[in-house]
């Protein structure tokens, strides 16, 4: 534990990038939502992997996406997931479907809305929440339109 962390409020868990995910988290840290895409079959692939799950190609790269998404499903978490979420409950967690491809899904906290507003297909847009000096999480904000 670093000096700065001693006695501090516990942090939410930080993603630990790996060989496949490094480009995703690096882009997020720079305020860009970049999703892995197969350069052979052109399918988008999330979570990132070393080979394309659709065609097996190892030629994958990160490409910036629009940041547009719709709400695929959600939950309101009441039971604490861990010490880093003290004071943050209940927590709105969405599964969002990115506009680029059907069933291209990711998990995010939902902002700009309350539980009663949520509905399938609700339009969302990415934003970034900085949780550490070198780490930002892609989150999704309700854009106010009707889904």
């Amino acid at each position: 534990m670093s000096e700065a962390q001693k006695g501090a409020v516990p942090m939410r868990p930080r993603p630990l990038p790996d060989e496949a995910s490094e480009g995703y988290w690096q882009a997020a840290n720079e305020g860009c939502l970049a999703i892995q895409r197969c350069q052979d079959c052109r399918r988008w692939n999330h979570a990132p992997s070393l080979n394309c799950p659709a065609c097996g190609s190892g030629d994958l790269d990160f490409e910036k996406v629009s940041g547009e998404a719709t709400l695929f499903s959600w939950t309101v978490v009441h039971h604490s997931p861990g010490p880093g979420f003290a004071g943050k409950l209940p927590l709105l967690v969405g599964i969002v479907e990115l506009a680029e491809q059907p069933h291209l899904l990711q998990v995010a906290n939902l902002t700009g809305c309350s539980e009663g507003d949520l509905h399938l297909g609700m339009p969302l847009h990415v934003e970034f929440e900085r949780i550490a000096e070198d780490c930002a999480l892609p989150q999704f904000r309700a854009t106010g339109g009707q889904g």
Partner: protein
Amino acid sequence: MWALSNKVAVAGIGYSALTRRSETPLVQLAKNAIDTALADAGLTRRDLDGLATSPGMPRYGGAKGTVEGVDVVTPWFLGEQLGVQNRIAYTGSTNGMVTQAFIDAAMAVASGVCTHAVVYRALHVPPGSYVNFDSTFASGQDQYFAPFGFSVPPAWAATVLRRYFEMFGYSRGDMARYIVDNRANTQLNPNGYWRGKPIARDDYLDARMIADPMSILDCDIPVDGCAAILLTSAERARDLKQKPALLSGMAAGTHSPPSSVPMTLEDIWTGCEQVAERIWASSGMGPTDIDNAHLYDGFSPFVFLWLEGLGICKRGEGLAFLRDGHGALGGKLPINTGGGALGEGRLHGMTQIIEAASQVSDRCGERQVPGARRAIATISNGLTKSTGFVFSRGEP
């Protein structure tokens, strides 16, 4: 149809005490369950020559318990502790769920590698909570979930249930009857953790939310304990103490959702349908051949999603089937007649297999489905590592 259909049988069943936090070490609970299963069949430890399990502690976040005999019980350690390690010809240990070890053990018996195999699942409730993500970093698949507070497995099931509710116009009120009836079934199960504690509809509607719409009563209860099943050949089983339950078919699933999410409604449907296709092919049966069903209920939505995947109900109609009481004892298709894992305690699908085998051998006492001939057990959420089994009556 599987060439070895009805050649392997469940010939004995054993439980340890199931309590929330036991003073008895896990290895002793495992020994109790195995001795009970052997005695149930009229056998002793000296007859045992196969042991199989999935020994891991399924903890999310925090330190995973790995202490042998306390947190986990591997078959090698257990063989020693039973004093029969040099008689054990087959040990099975899977990383998936214990019900995959059941498949392995059934094949070991069918192929003659061993004669009397016990499949067991020993589970220990860790100090604190099963769910407590207290690490600084989230790696592997956790990196996409834990930073968002999405490391609570009931929350994963909640996203499935929510999407189902929204697509088909259901609400928690539609789930209440099943949960209440299921708890009533538990009252007829001597092993049930929740025996002696029936609930009413309002208890369900007012239950504490874990991750909306999943309440505490939609989640199985973690217990300290062990369940054990003795497998042998159908031929050998006919010489033993209990009526055999014949294993007519078995199957495992391999469908996965995108790796960025733990589960989705659509992927669960696809996965359940895949297991269904395989189990019906293996057993040579179909949905109308089954007279009781034991559908995994670690989280309640899986029960009606299995009904749909198995082809017993159409997509979107499984919850109505439960809501209208068709799954109750005396209903069209009695489901989880002993209260499932929601009522009996978390034993990772052993409950479903044991209840299915018990029904077709007339061993269910007050909750017996009269004349039950064929029972299905399905385990897990339909996604990869899920399993299905059909058991048939061994004698008229």
